[in-house]
């Protein structure tokens, strides 16, 4: 199996293996995956399941030990430069400069994304407005609340209107209002054509947002499909959280 060149496929991974030096077992163990263009794909799994490793490989941050992956048909290792022009990342960390204002941060990332100089200010304002931070644009990020930081983090990821956006737990540790705003905006971005790869531990978010999910454990995909279809397969599970616990077990993952 080789990564797909199909125009409908945003992302494909074939037999991906990642072994970290001195690790007892692989972080990814022959993981294969295909994600349709225009979908909101939920990537679920307990801590240490391999979600962040998978996203890092797909974002060109990490090289796989074996296997291959492609974004819109471009190999993430051999054509990393081209892949980077099509993707956006909203990492789990607040990947912003805390001593700069939200506007200064976004301006900088816009230049690095090579947006035309004349468009930068308008684009920065639009992204800040999208996440509800336009009136706070000139405050330093360090002075933001947790929710504001998460929203600014999202704004930096969508500045260049990527075709594929990776979101690594973008709503962790924030209040219901900020979470609601982020989920609404993500749905809008998807409606505008952006493919989203979404990882989270909040199952209700996945149920609300994602049309396709994969549950990953020990570096392998153990369940795959639409949330409703997966629930239908397990009669005993009332919701996605119960299904998740049935599939991955109740033992702690530290």
């Amino acid at each position, binding site marked *: 199996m080789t990564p797909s060149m199909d125009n409908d496929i945003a992302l494909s991974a074939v037999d991906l293996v990642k072994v970290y030096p001195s690790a007892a077992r692989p972080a990814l163990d022959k993981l294969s995956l295909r994600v349709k263009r225009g979908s909101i794909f939920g990537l679920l799994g307990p801590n240490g399941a391999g979600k962040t490793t998978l996203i890092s*490989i797909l974002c060109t941050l990490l090289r796989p030990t074996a296997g291959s992956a492609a974004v819109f048909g471009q190999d993430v290792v051999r054509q990393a430069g081209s892949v980077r022009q099509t993707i956006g990342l909203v990492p789990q960390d607040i*990947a912003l400069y*805390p001593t700069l204002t939200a506007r200064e941060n976004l301006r900088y990332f816009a230049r*690095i994304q090579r947006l035309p100089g004349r468009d930068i200010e308008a684009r920065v304002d639009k992204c800040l407005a999208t996440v509800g931070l336009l009136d706070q644009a000139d405050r330093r990020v360090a002075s933001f609340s947790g929710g504001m930081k998460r929203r600014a983090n999202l704004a930096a990821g969508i500045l260049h209107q990527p075709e594929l956006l990776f979101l690594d737990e973008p709503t962790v540790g924030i209040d219901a209002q900020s979470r609601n705003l982020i989920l609404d905006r993500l749905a809008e971005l998807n409606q505008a054509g952006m493919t989203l790869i979404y990882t989270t531990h909040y199952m209700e978010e996945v149920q609300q947002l994602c049309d396709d999910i994969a549950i990953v454990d020990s570096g392998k995909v153990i369940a795959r499909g639409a949330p409703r279809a997966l629930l239908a397969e397990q009669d005993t599970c009332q919701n996605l959280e119960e299904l998740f616990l049935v599939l991955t077990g109740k033992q702690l993952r530290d």
Partner: protein
Amino acid sequence: MLLLANIKKELLLLSRDRAGLLVLFVMPMLLVLVLSLVQDDLFRASGQAATRAVFVNLDQGSAGVDFAAQLEATGALELVREDSGQKISADQARQLVLSGNYQFALVVPKDFSHALETSAESTVRAALREQSSDPHTERLLVYFDPAVRGVYRSAVTTALQQGLLALEIKRKSAALGRLLPEELQRTIKKQLGPYGAQGIPIKVPQLDSAWASKPLVKLDEESVFADKYPTLPTSVQQNVPAWTLFGMFFIVIPLAGTLIRERQEGTLARLMTMPVSNRSLLLGKVSAYLLICLVQFGLMLAVGKFILPLLGTPVLELGSAPLALLLVAFSAALAACGYGILVGVLARSYDQASTFGSVSVVIAAAMGGVMVPVYVMPRAMQALSVFSPLGWGLDAFLDIFVRNGTLQSVLGYVAALVLFFLVCLGFALVVFQRWRRGI
């Protein structure tokens, strides 16, 4: 455009970091100010200016005055006889040394002249009569500050002994001049017996004591320094470039810190998923900090040129090759930034970078002659100093400031500094590339 964006971002970040700015600008300025002032006396004591010493002359004859004249004639000592318009007593002299105001004091005893002349006469008389003599040895009191270093103390002692020797020779010559005719007459009369000398006037030559003070050999002093130290710098010429370089290399800490913070905060991961080259990211940092280093350099020169002279030190002479000076400053700044980038990619935490960065810079500074000039280091350390980039920079600056160096004469140092930068940047790019590939 990417490079400019990176430079602008780095400068913005730095402008928001007050502690970082303090380290970069205030610390080197304080170092230059304090160390130039503290070491000014030391540099003077090393032979640039006369050493000031308290001189108490209790002698009632001329020997004390002669001795003082002998010492002052060497040009190495400036004798201080009064304090606040009052003659200094022996006790006060001791107190002045004890309080650290002077490194040493001399007290010439009351009957110094008389004792010296009596001893000289008895020694000469005994010699002429082929008798043994054991003249009274007069004592000259010297108070030393116990903190005075051994070399300095022995240099002063040697100068005093030379002065005393000259004084003794003069007194012995005078005694010889006086006693020789007398002894000749006495000997001749004794040898001719009671008859031979009768009626014969015995004329013996009179000796003038001036011959004793005329030197037969003149000491021709020439400093045999290594080729690169034919002349020595003033405290300002040594300290301003030395501590400026130290401050410039301390840029390692904030520069490495930005890379580590970007790694820890996740911004570097975000940047690495963007279409930007490693070279552009690293050169953006280098360029911004290069600018900071050059501003630092300009400020330090201004301190040496305008502020330090107000506090009594010599003015910083900048030599006559401004282009060479700028080139050396630029290459030293490049070397410092290259090293900062290398530390930033190799260190795993800010603590690691700040500890390793500061310790390695202090070691390189010590080896390169920033703390103690290379020319006073032991030979082994002088040999090691050639491995210090701070030493290359300092030698180049001193060449321009002290020895009227030109662009041509500092080109070797400039090349070494630029090469050091390129090697550091090359290593950093290799490590950075490995990060980006996730190896």
